[in-house]
């Protein structure tokens, strides 16, 4: 076995371990802040897996979008609304946990069955385009995947307008479900000039 192959196997096992343990930590840890940081770690390891598959552009895009944007925003949101308040106790928690665990295990067994029964076609590593992939992705985005790409951008625009409407409470100052005026305490006060105008 050559040194390159050994390195690859070691990297792959470390990365997959980090992905699995990190993802378990994201769900099972009590502290939401730890979960958010671990999610960043999982995203990073997935980027590492892409690197092992010779998809360096996808790996960098994964880091930029998921770690640099999505995860930072999640952490940001957690830190801005980190009210130290206990969650309401849910009745029959135990039976709920059993039901959700069994559903998850069923899904997992289904996935494992698909994985084992399917014959995965392996691409010839000599056919790998490597660094060319950046150009190829660009060509696809501007030809046959143009419509999905543009639809995704419209979706993001809608999300952004929704966020602005929700954040600016002078647009919607009534709670939709209860009809009561929204708690406006956190809105910035209108700025007052510090220096009095000369009369």
């Amino acid at each position, binding site marked *: 076995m050559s040194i390159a192959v050994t390195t690859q196997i070691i990297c792959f096992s470390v990365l997959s371990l980090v992905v699995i343990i990190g993802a378990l930590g994201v769900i099972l840890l009590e502290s939401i802040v730890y979960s958010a*940081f671990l999610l*960043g770690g999982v995203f990073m390891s997935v980027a590492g897996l892409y690197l092992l598959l010779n998809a*360096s552009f996808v790996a960098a895009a994964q*880091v930029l979008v998921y*770690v640099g*944007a999505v*995860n*930072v925003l999640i952490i940001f949101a957690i*830190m801005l609304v980190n009210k130290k308040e206990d969650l309401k106790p849910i009745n029959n928690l135990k039976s709920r946990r059993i039901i959700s665990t069994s559903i998850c295990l069923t899904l997992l067994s289904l996935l494992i069955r698909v994985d084992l029964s399917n014959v995965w076609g392996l691409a010839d590593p000599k056919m790998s385009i490597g660094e060319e992939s950046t150009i190829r992705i660009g060509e696809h985005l501007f030809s046959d995947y143009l419509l999905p790409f543009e639809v995704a951008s419209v979706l993001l625009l809608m999300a952004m307008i929704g966020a602005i409407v929700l954040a600016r409470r002078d647009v919607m100052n009534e709670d939709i479900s209860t009809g009561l005026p929204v708690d406006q305490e956190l809105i910035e006060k209108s700025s007052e000039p510090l220096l009095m105008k000369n009369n």
Partner: protein
Amino acid sequence: MNSGLDLEFSFNEILKGLGLSSELAHIIWLPLPMLLVLVSAVVGVLVTVWLERKISAAAQQRIGPEYAGALGVLQPIADGLKLLVKEDIIPAKADSILFTAGPILVLVPVILSWLIVPFGQNLLISNVGIGIFLWIALSSIQPIGLLMSGYASNNKYSLLGGLRAAAQSISYEIPLALSVLAIVLMTNSLSTVDIVNQQSGAGILSWNIWRQPVGFIIFWICALAECERLPFDLPEAEEELVAGYQTEYAGMKFALFYLGSYINLILSALLVSILYLGGWGFPIPIEIIAKFLNLPIDAPVIQVFTASIGIIMTVLKAYLLVFIAILLRWTTPRVRIDQLLDLGWKFLLPISLANLLVTAGLKLAFPQFFGG
């Protein structure tokens, strides 16, 4: 394009001559450029710290460091030693795991980004195809480290500083990436080596700064904001936030932040010189000098000359920019956080989008000047 000196190839040939297999030779070679770049980055920080102290002293009509070595050149080493032996304090109510991981997450991406900084045709660690995009992706990890240390310190100033740092680097990343995109459009490649080669046609006249003046200014402003240098050093504004996310840090962990910010400054200066000021290119093309001296371009003397001129030019351009950054720090007042975000989102972002559009149009209209 001539290939220039290829140290890796000659080094491997020597080792193979000694009877080692080519794989073993490669493994022995691998850590050498990494160590070299790490050492040069740290030495670069020491020089920058000394420059900062001396220039700030000159700007304020003081003398500055004087006793440690001639003109105080050993002062940064003394500072480093002091930080090294200081007690490492973790506040009792702080989250010790995140508190320790924060500075590491800030420093590691910055050092990793040195992977793509070329000092010559073959004088870089790795000519990865995604080149400059790797730097943009890696620099987006930093805010997580800042948020982490801000949160873990369990101190309101730290938390506010961390949040400000993250908000600032998110909003300045977009114009930064867009101005890099205009350069990439002209080069047809993301690789830093290709970006420099594309500017090497006619010496100083073919540098990107003449073709991308707006992009250059946007990139420089955004780079200063990403490095949290003074017109934009809101995350650690002393008068408002004590020291921002670094408030609770002491000893070596504080030194990691300090090192990270200075390595980032040098890296940004290097990247400005690579993207806009012709990288390792000499203002007069090497080919003309070789013709003047009646030597073929492949002659060993010219090869060594080209390589050393390349390193000197890259470092010289970068330190010129570092000098400007230091001068800016000690002569300009700090902006407010709302001014900072307004500048980023309402001014730099539209301008950089327009710059990208104009570049694309010019590329179609004059393909010989703006890259075909």
